[in-house]
């Protein structure tokens, strides 16, 4: 009885969600608002001289061909990471979805890379592909490939793509596997009886039923490529050579933390924030409707 009365009181529900709201406000909304405010300021590092410059920082950004180039690099990088990451992990998940001997060991091993921190993943591949000491570098050299990602931008981009995909495969793999296991066996058996081969069964039954999972993973992977790959870039190429691997989030770090250009870097953060909002809206409007958990 008493409980019901308390729930009826108008403030209790609010009181219960208050901690959550407070955390969100203090740790998310406040910094975000601060960033928006900073993006309209021109200030020196010590904040001894602050000028309000309206949209000057944004205008400067979009007039800078190198910022636009960084956009292109990010688009290319995230497409490569998302597409190849999804393709490889789907392939692995399809293989793992059979009753094989040792399947659980195989699955466990595939999940391991997810426990590796991005920075460590970067360093791992850095050692394998380092131009002076990398073991893969020696192998490549023996087949006539001159590998030096310090000079060749394409190679540098390839390096961070490989590291980023390798790290993310486990996550995608788990979701795909769960998705595959939730497809009713009867559908596939029926198709088999009708004479459809494994390839045909995959494309006409499994793949369409997996598409909500795949779409969800696509969004997650793009967000991952946009933000969580910072440590990989930082520990390997540092954005070089000649901006070939300077993704947006790394440029924000370089300009804001290393170079102390707070206004410019805040403006870049705001742009990135808008991109995330758009991605989230896309996810909620199209994905949430179709995915069945």
């Amino acid at each position: 009885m008493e409980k019901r009365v308390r729930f009826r009181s108008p403030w209790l529900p609010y009181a219960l969600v208050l901690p959550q709201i407070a955390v969100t406000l203090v740790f998310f909304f406040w910094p975000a608002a601060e960033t928006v405010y900073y993006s309209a300021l021109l200030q020196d590092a010590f904040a001894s001289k602050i000028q309000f410059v309206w949209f000057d920082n944004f205008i400067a950004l979009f007039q800078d061909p190198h910022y636009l180039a960084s956009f292109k690099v990010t688009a290319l990088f995230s497409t490569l990471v998302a597409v190849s990451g999804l393709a490889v992990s789907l392939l692995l998940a399809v293989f793992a979805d059979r009753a094989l001997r040792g399947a659980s060991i195989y699955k466990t091993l595939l999940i391991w890379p997810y426990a590796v921190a991005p920075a460590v993943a970067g360093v791992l591949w850095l050692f394998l592909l380092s131009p002076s000491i990398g073991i893969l570098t020696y192998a490549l050299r023996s087949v006539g490939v001159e590998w030096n990602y310090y000079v060749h931008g394409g190679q540098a981009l390839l390096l961070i793509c490989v590291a980023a995909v390798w790290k993310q495969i486990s996550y995608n793999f788990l979701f795909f596997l769960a998705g595959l296991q939730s497809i009713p066996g009867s559908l596939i058996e029926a198709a088999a009886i009708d004479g459809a081969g494994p390839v045909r069964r995959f494309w006409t039954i499994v793949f369409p039923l997996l598409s909500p999972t795949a779409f969800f993973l696509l969004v997650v992977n793009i967000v991952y490529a946009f933000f969580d790959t910072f440590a990989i870039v930082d520990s390997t190429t540092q954005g070089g050579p000649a901006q070939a691997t300077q993704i947006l989030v790394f440029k924000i770090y370089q300009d804001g933390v290393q170079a102390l250009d707070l206004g410019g870097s805040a403006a870049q953060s705001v742009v990135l924030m808008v991109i995330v909002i758009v991605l989230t809206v896309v996810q909620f409007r199209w994905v949430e409707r179709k995915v069945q958990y």
Partner: protein
Amino acid sequence: MRKLLLAAAVAAAAALTAGPAAAQVEIQWWHSMAGKLGDKVNEIAEKFNASQKDYKVVAVYKGQYDESLTAAIAAYRAGKPPQIVQVFEVGTATMMAAQGAIMPVYKLMAQANEKFDPKAFLPAVTSYYSDTQGNLLSMPFNSSTQVLYINKDAFKKAGLDPEKPPVTWADLMQDADKLKAAGVACAFTTGWQSWVQLESFSAWHNVPFATQQNGFGGLNTRLEFNGPVQVMHIQNLADMAKKGTFTYAGRKDEPTGKFQSGECGMETTSSGSYANIKANAAGKFELGVAPLPYYPSVKGAPQNTIIGGATLWVMTQKDPSVYKGIAKFFTFVSSPEIQLDWHKSTGYVPITLAAYELAKKEGLYKERPGFDTAIVELTQKPPTPNSKGLRLGNFVQIRNVIDEELEAAWGGQKTAKAALDDAVKRGNDLLEKFEKANK
């Protein structure tokens, strides 16, 4: 009961921290010296603490240079700056422009009545950190300059005289050809490309890097390192890269790893790497050290090189009584004994002439031939407006720009002229922005 215990614990903790602080004034020293260098920094702080009773220097490692600078700025903005922060040379203009945030060293020493003679320091060191009136703003601490390291075993293999390192860039290019012909996969490489091949290169050849005396004259400085001398040099290096006699291996110190593994014949990089290279080369190859090569066709070359490294900045304190302790600590740090020990164990140059004399008297350079190359390069001529140093705002970003454009030149996407023109143009936008922010 629990509340009471908690209150007691808080009171006890407060008493504990307040106790020694009342007797001793604490001086926070934020630095970026990791590993062996960090141990040495702690040792200096301990020695100072043992030498007197009124002040206690606490050395705190705050990450790499850019990280500790950011940390100090954040602390200042939060109203709790450290007393001393170690800032790299690239951050000099940022610190100088921060009126009210820093206490210039010349003022600090005068106020504390501490004996202080800027002329006791190496001129090439003080000139980098003084204002146009010649007042020293920050305390020199770790300074290095660029030298040429050679792998004597690779020289022998190529039929070259290991006791005759290349003197001019023409020599170096010839030697690189021979090294490559003898099968040395990486004939020449360079660390810190912007610092070595453009910044110090310009000083070494007495040509300007930027207008307004390389930025010392005012905030309206603009870059001009796309002159004929620099373009010729960068084009030569780009041609070498194309031929395969110059191997680009990274923006910072990564090439040193390649050199000390014995893979490269020659490397130009910081003299501060000497101790590390020497230790790593032991048993693999014999190491030689020589001055930076130059172009004899350029009038006035070689002039003097410019320094890199860091200085100690004093941040403004609410309680001015601590300044006296900082002044005492600075006197201690620049004493010949401390400087000599620092020089010997790190490879950084001794910052005072007295320490340099002491090293000579001890026979240090006979024992380690080539160890004084850096000091000779820095002191052989009095610095000119082109070789005093650089004072540029947004310098960290400008270096990034230079790195990017040089990489485009090494990769062959741009000619040296185009790459340097673009770097100047992009760098000038950054300088304009800095000028606007600091009006």
